[in-house]
């Protein structure tokens, strides 16, 4: 009996031979890996608190590179009361509140981004803000030498930050995230290159200020393009299970982006005018064409090529959006050129209302705990700003 039992146990052990075949196990493993990559961990509120307490407010003031030239009076007022932070949002370089916008508001917002992708996206957004500020200044006339230098310095700083985040993703072999971030980076730079060139043509006074910035933007743009191409190649070279998942994710993102930009155009149709609307829609058609081509590649099993097509479609759509946004702001300028017209005041207010609403929606999204997933972009998580009073204006041809 004694013997019986142990023999039975031993015999039962043989059932361990029922298992997955080596190749089956490997394949399922690959699919699991893809799934994991496309569903990154959302970090909990406790972690959010953690990173906040590790960075005391005081060191933000003392060690902040942006605040070095801030007048003491403002510093004291800031510590004593909080309303400066809100007022600072619309400030431009050269204004006394500007260091608060860049050195404090933006830094604190950075604290609340949690995932690596969200951080990278925020850095890109900061870069865009610098360019938008420069464009606004250029529109109003000349930019002084010191302000110009500051703008360029900040721009370079952000660009380097974005690039180092891309490199971090690369070093962790997360080529999809690297491709995603570098693609967005490329788009921002390319759109603003066009805007700055347009400014250069139309505003001779601003030309000296804008020219060197434009050069820098072009250079960074080339860099971004190179990085994007390199990372796309890496993604294409991954195992077919991983690339097909990446391609499908990018397809979804591209399609969502197109829908989003279309809605955006719809809302702004009246402000934009017929010509700009048509041009924007033409761009979207190109993006759709690229998606269609990508789908054909997907069906043919050429996942790497499909991935590249979908990325490009996303870029084209995103660029259309950035150009419309710039156009929208400049158009508003045009309306209130010269005198204060009741009609144009309401139109300007409408434009600001739209901005504010978008801002609220996006802040709600960004402050929520959703992580930046580079595949499942539902709404645009890139940012918009409340643009306070912009004066004067000229019709700028964006070569759109």
């Amino acid at each position: 009996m004694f013997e019986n039992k142990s023999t039975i146990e031993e015999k039962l052990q043989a059932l361990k031979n029922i298992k997955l075949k080596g190749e089956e196990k490997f394949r399922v493993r690959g699919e699991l890996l893809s799934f994991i990559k496309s569903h990154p961990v959302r970090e909990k509120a406790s972690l959010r608190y953690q990173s906040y307490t590790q960075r005391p407010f005081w060191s933000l003031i003392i060690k902040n590179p942006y605040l070095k030239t801030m007048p003491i009076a403002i510093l004291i007022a800031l510590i004593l009361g909080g309303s400066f932070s809100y007022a600072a949002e619309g400030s431009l370089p050269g204004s006394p509140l500007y260091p608060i916008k860049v050195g404090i508001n933006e830094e604190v917002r950075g604290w609340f981004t949690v995932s690596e992708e969200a951080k990278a996206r925020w850095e890109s957004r900061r870069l865009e803000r610098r360019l938008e500020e420069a464009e606004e200044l250029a529109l109003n006339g000349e930019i002084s030498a010191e302000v110009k230098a500051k703008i360029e310095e900040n721009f370079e700083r952000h660009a380097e930050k974005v690039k180092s985040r891309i490199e971090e993703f690369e070093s962790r072999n997360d080529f999809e995230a690297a491709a995603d971030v570098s693609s967005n980076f490329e788009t921002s730079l390319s759109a603003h290159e066009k805007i700055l060139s347009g400014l250069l043509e139309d505003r001779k006074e601003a030309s000296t200020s804008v020219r060197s910035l434009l050069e820098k933007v072009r250079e960074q743009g080339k860099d971004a393009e190179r990085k994007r191409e390199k990372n796309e190649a890496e993604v294409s070279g991954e195992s077919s299970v991983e690339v097909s998942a990446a391609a499908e994710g990018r397809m979804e993102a591209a399609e969502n982006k197109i829908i989003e930009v279309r809605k955006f155009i719809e809302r702004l149709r009246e402000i934009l005018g017929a010509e700009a609307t048509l041009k924007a829609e033409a761009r979207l058609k190109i993006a759709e064409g690229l998606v269609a081509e990508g789908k054909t590649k997907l069906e043919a099993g050429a996942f790497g090529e499909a991935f590249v097509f979908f990325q490009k479609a996303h870029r084209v759509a995103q660029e259309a959006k950035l150009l419309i946004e710039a156009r929208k702001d400049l158009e508003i300028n045009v309306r209130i050129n010269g005198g204060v017209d009741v009609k144009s005041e309401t139109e300007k207010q409408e434009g600001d209302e739209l901005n504010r609403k978008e801002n609220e929606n996006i802040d709600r999204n960004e402050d929520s705990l959703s992580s930046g997933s580079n595949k499942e972009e539902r709404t645009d998580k890139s940012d918009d700003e409340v643009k306070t009073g912009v004066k004067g204006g000229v019709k700028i041809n964006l070569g759109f």
Partner: protein
Amino acid sequence: MVYPSYITRPMSEKELIDAYDMYADAIFRHCFFRVFNREKAKDMAQDVFVKTWGYISRGGEIKNIRAFLYKVATNLIIDESRKKRALSLDALMEEGFDFGADGREKAENIISAKEALTLVEKLDDNHREIVLMRYVEGLSPKEIAEILGETENMVSVRIHRGVKKIKELVKNV
């Protein structure tokens, strides 16, 4: 990022993949002995790990990954049995089936496995499951109790009965 001990950190990707490497076969087997269909069992096993990651990525905590995986598998099995597929181990053995041999498996292992199957063939599902969990997967009665949501006592009794049944069957052969 370094986490202090009082903040539980989410399981990392690497840890789940390690768990996969260690337990995928066991989970597959566990499912197989309920659904008696290789393909289905394979899909279910994959599903277990995918669902587990879904749970982790949404902030879920896991204290014992092995037990967790079995729990998820058990739930999937319940779902499957509701769909009802009329299969039995008998029928399967009659048809003959794929042991997952890579060709490198020794013939004698396959023979032993076939022999072992005859031992558990006639058991009912519940007894079989528990006997396999105990003697093939090496789970302790306590762990089994946790996974199945039964008392430890219940589990021990059932294991005992299962083994007794096997011995009777062997004697009668």
